[in-house]
């Protein structure tokens, strides 16, 4: 039974990957790092539920096998299908966002890092519905960088997904999605939490492709 489930998880994973490739022609742009197996925390912007599967889909197989997305337990355990896809297909590290639960998300994250896994996290905490490129980051990224300073924190920009699948729409648009990986950041000696989070956010928003930047003065020139 266990074997059957893990086989089913592989099949579902491949199907999702092919689907992502066919619909969005998703492509990785390795700007700041090489696609080599190395322990990393990929931290990404979050505009759509499709963000995590896209990053997962563009990673080469050797990297994909060791990467674990950090995701909300309340979302992924909401029904049996998600409870299969989240933990078994994507191998998620499920954390509980509810404040009343005495379950420290950071402990689970550090545990996964100490097992040698790479992680995908969304430091904004929620999907960004504003016109700003990023919401303020939560402290988690800083705490990870402080606790495990040797691990690369890699800014990862997912472009176009907010138009492919905006919140509230049912049909995804088949537009081209690009996932850009930037140069890794680390917490510097004595760097304050706010300074680091600001620097990490800038490193991420700098990866936005030009076409996504708001056009100013285009008409007046």
């Amino acid at each position, binding site marked *: 039974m266990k074997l059957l489930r893990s086989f089913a998880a592989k099949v579902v994973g491949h199907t999702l990957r092919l689907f992502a490739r066919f619909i969005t022609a998703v492509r990785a742009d390795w700007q700041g790092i090489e696609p080599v197996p190395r322990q990393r925390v990929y931290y990404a912007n979050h505009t759509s539920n499709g963000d995590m599967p896209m990053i997962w889909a563009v990673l080469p197989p050797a990297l994909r096998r060791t990467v674990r997305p950090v995701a909300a337990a309340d979302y992924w355990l909401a029904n049996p299908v998600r409870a299969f896809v989240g933990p078994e297909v994507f191998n998620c590290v499920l954390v509980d966002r509810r404040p009343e639960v005495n379950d420290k998300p950071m402990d689970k994250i550090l545990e996964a890092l100490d097992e040698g896994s790479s992680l995908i996290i969304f430091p904004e905490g929620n999907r960004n519905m504003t016109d700003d490129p990023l919401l303020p980051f939560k402290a988690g990224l800083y705490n990870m960088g402080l606790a495990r300073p040797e691990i690369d924190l890699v800014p990862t920009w997912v472009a176009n997904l907010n138009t492919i699948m905006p919140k509230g729409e049912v049909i995804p*648009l088949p537009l081209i999605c690009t996932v850009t990986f930037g140069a890794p950041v680390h917490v510097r000696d004595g760097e304050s939490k706010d300074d680091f989070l600001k620097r990490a956010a800038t490193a991420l928003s700098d990866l936005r492709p030009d*076409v996504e930047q708001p056009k100013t003065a285009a008409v007046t020139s």
Partner: protein
Amino acid sequence: MNSTVNMTSATSDLLLLFFGVIAILMALTILGEVLRARQRIEPNNPVLETYMTRVHSWWGIVLLVGVALMTGRLAVIILFLFASFAALREFLTLTTKAQADHKSLALAFFAVLPLQYLFIWMDWEGLFTVFIPVYAFLLLPIVSALRGDANRYLIRVAETQWALMISVFCLSHVPALMTLSFNGIDDRSVLLIGFLVLVVQFGDLLEYFFGRRIGKTKIAPGLSPKTWEGLACGVGSAILIGALLNWITPFGVFGAMAMAGIASLVGMFGNLVFAAIKRDRGVKDWSHLIPGQGGFVDQLDSVIFAAPIFYHLTRYFWGS
């Protein structure tokens, strides 16, 4: 009896054309391999590597199109349907849009595009020539307007319509050539696709080659390295190729030369139009889907521009 004879000759002409192109590709591949072997002292010459990637992509394209043409109408229509899908995806990735356009963009992809190819498959000329310029043109902006977002509205709907005209309407005129018939013979029309694609693409290739060699006067310096000298040589070569290929067309020698020249010329200026769009959007290529050549639109731009004009001229002067 008569139609059997015609079909056989169309098929054998198609095979002859296909193997002719394969022979040219083999020559180009061998040329590249010889150059690569001679340059072993200085490996990874970027120009040579680009050339080889392009030749490899060309193998893929020629095999796909060749097999589709030999399989028949439906295969050609499905092939171009997917090409249109890829082109529309590249185009709409770069256009201005808002969430208010989500439904009209979904309709463009999942209704307008398949319907256009369905009408071509049904041979419904009265509809496929006006469906996008009239019906999609009027109806999609209504769908966008219903969501009540006026911010950059005209830019949004105009760019969406441009994307549909280029990627679906114009490109679909390549398989639409199969709906034409000449003096009651319609199965030779598939050869016209081979003729159009070959004269336009080889014209482009030679324009690039001669432009590099002898090009001096730039046509549009801000946009593209294209030169008048390269353009003249490219169109001249296309005319020659058209003359050589006249046996697969209903045009006759001089007709084939004229059609090849017009198609190639329009295609080259089309290339310039696409260069302007790319420059406007700050991208070098439309996407990265075809190794060495950028996106589908990069590969198809001149054919996209030439196809509707080639279709209508053919229909007006030789159609029956």
